């Protein structure tokens, strides 16, 4: 999946806001670049963000296209994605 050359941009929706992000990034990286702090809320309501970066810790979970518990660090950003953060209970 190597995209060479110029940085393409994609349109996605994050928490009901339309944003443009660089192509060829993971959802976790894109959210990090957007300044998202709380990817999810822990069971006691704490804000949580990515920790291990490799799909092991499950802290970066967000809802993507209405599917909850998606590990943002393992998923590439796709044009038209709808991402919801800080919704895990």
């Amino acid at each position, binding site marked *: 999946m190597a995209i060479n050359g110029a940085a393409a941009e994609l349109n996605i929706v994050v928490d009901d806001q339309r944003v443009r992000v660089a192509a060829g990034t993971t959802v*976790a990286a894109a959210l990090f670049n957007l300044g998202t702090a709380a990817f999810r809320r822990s069971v006691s309501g704490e804000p949580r963000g990515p*920790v291990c970066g490799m799909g092991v810790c499950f802290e970066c979970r967000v809802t993507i296209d209405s599917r909850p518990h998606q590990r943002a660090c393992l998923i590439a950003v796709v044009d038209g994605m709808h991402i919801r953060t800080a919704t895990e209970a």
Partner: protein
Amino acid sequence: MMAPLAGTDATLIVADVAIVGAGPAGIAAAVRAAESRLRVVVLDRGLETGGQIWRHMSGSPVPRIAQHWIAQLSRSGAQVIHGTSVVDVQHEDAEFEILADSSGSALRVRAGRIILATGARELFIPFDGWTLPGVMGIGGAQALLKSGASFAGKRVIVAGSGPLMLPVAASLATSGAKLILVAEQARRSAVMRFAAGLWRSPALVAQAARYRSRFLSTSYSTGTWVTAAHGADRLESVTVTDGRRTWREAVDVLCTGYGLVPNVELARLLGCETRDGAIAVDAQQRTTVANVLAVGEATGIGGAPLSLIEGEIAGSSVSPRGRVSDALLRKRAALEIAARRMLDAFALRQELRSLPTAGTIVCRCEDVSYGAVKDAACARQAKLYTRVGMGPCQGRTCMPGLDFLLAWQPDTVRPPIEPALVSVLSSELADDAAASILFNSSVGEAYQ
């Protein structure tokens, strides 16, 4: 993404060798095994080949050696399937059947041999505030960086221990982060002794110097560690100590980790013996289970060069005409010695056992505090009473730290070894399922 064959709800791949993990070790094993025209399939959780250390998404630079091996892999005839997490494996007659979640669909891989290249993950020791967004692993920061995250202009501290610290600090600094401090918990004397011993490996010395040169203006402090992180909804500052004095630093990102832990869950599910937390292997990289080999960090933390050699040895080992040169064996021996030296030098200090307070969250999945578990009679009791380790990470984040703190032994491993969709766990092949990947006709001599 692989669509299931009509009439079944799982896709079947039949191979001679199934390799789990496409990091350096898995890549080298695949290349060597495929040289003998064996049908080789490589399964990897990530989006691209390279594992953790050779991560590259569009734009990020890849070391030449990684380019070399990845190019060889793409020419080798081995099939590499990304986005694939192994959730179960069974022995069926003389064959293994792996069940994997591949981009949300069930994938079954049958092979006569398995090579485990499952790598390692970071060891985290919990401390107050470590759950704040902005506190991440050292490898975690590298992973984010290499998948497109920008740390430019951010105030960053790298603190902890282990082989990831220098390269990640270098990468972050090069990418424009304001690296304020690199804090290694090991004592200066241990680090100096280790550095002095590096005269045997001039390449390693040169590499360390190159890394260090990328953040020369940043303090590299030994015998120093972070005791707490502070902030309202995200990280704002940390408390640092050198054992004598304590001070605060304002930071945006704390990269912290205390070394690496081999990923042995799949090995243990197969019944492989482990030693010191790593998969036990012999000189041919064979585990204690017939037809299962293991390579790379999962067999003991030793770095990419060692992983490559182990992969080559295993790949040659499963090949009917594979030969391993004496030079390769000598290199492996030398790198193993160097790896052991490194692990000894950077052993974790006693003071780290006081890092968590009673209120520190130790299980991030279930929000269980240290106070709730530290007096438990055993790990199993703590799990049943508090649910520590019973969340989706299946204890991967908390248990190594709790083993360091409380000497907890790992639990029995049961499938799924990673959370799996109910649809994947309930999937079944039709009796007459045909394999949906056909290897190149020039490949595929059955292994005798």
